[in-house]
């Protein structure tokens, strides 16, 4: 797998984004094994409050939270803050795109919008 596009930054950190976190993680892990400092929006980047609330919400929606609700979750605002932080730090961003041809995700759309603006 390769990055669909890269936004070059001013430091050596690389943030990896993509439509499917199951694809983002192995890609990020592979970069990490090459000695590159990599981060993704996962693990300790997600607060306990956001994690717990998201699980509660998803459970109540039967695993299908509507997009208009998703964009008002703490998880969404933390994801947004993470992307904005990457941009403010001047980090490089590798976008692996949508390798599994999944449906739209408001999280990924937001990330692309902040990082690449209107460029699809």
């Amino acid at each position, binding site marked *: 797998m390769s990055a669909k596009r890269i936004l070059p930054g001013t430091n050596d950190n690389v943030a990896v984004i993509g439509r499917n*976190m199951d694809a983002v993680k192995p890609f990020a892990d592979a970069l990490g094994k090459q000695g590159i400092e990599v981060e993704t929006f996962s693990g300790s980047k997600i607060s306990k409050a956001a994690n717990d609330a998201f699980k*509660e*919400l998803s459970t109540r*929606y039967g*695993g299908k*939270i509507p997009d208009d609700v998703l964009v008002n979750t703490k998880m969404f605002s933390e994801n947004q803050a993470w992307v904005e932080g990457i941009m403010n730090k001047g980090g490089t961003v590798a976008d692996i795109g949508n390798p599994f041809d999944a449906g739209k995700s408001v*999280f990924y759309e937001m990330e692309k919008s902040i990082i690449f603006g209107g460029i699809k």
Partner: protein
Amino acid sequence: MNLTNQKSPLNDIYALFESHLQEGFKLLKIKPISIESRIRHFNLQPLPNPCEELELEVEFPGAICIIHFGQSEIHTDLFFSLVRFERQDHRALFLGDYLAERNDKRKASLSFSDTEFTLEEGITRIVEVLVAIFNNELHPLLAGLTWITAEFDWEGYK
């Protein structure tokens, strides 16, 4: 989040779940030290109205297991359980994440619709799955011999 212990119109259903769980837990290899239950009311943003669920705090020798059971306020035919394990100085393990990471389809058995199952059937299924997982896979964690972590399950949202 506010934690209160008020009565609920769902008390009978909660009692059914709790009694099934108590019976199921008699089959565990690692026995609970204590089980406490309470009804939990809390605000869940961005939902406008408070949510409610039964919360069971089950203490095992090596972990505290928090089991939530309730009826969805959004899809009222849906009943669910959420299970997590906690130990001091360790990241909590959510059973859903653990099962998703292993592509274990039993994750779907932790909730049910009362259009497909009776309450008795749905609750029985949840308890059977919990007992099987606790006995066959998570008993070292419950005994305090190890700890397990799992990636957050995005469930396709991202």
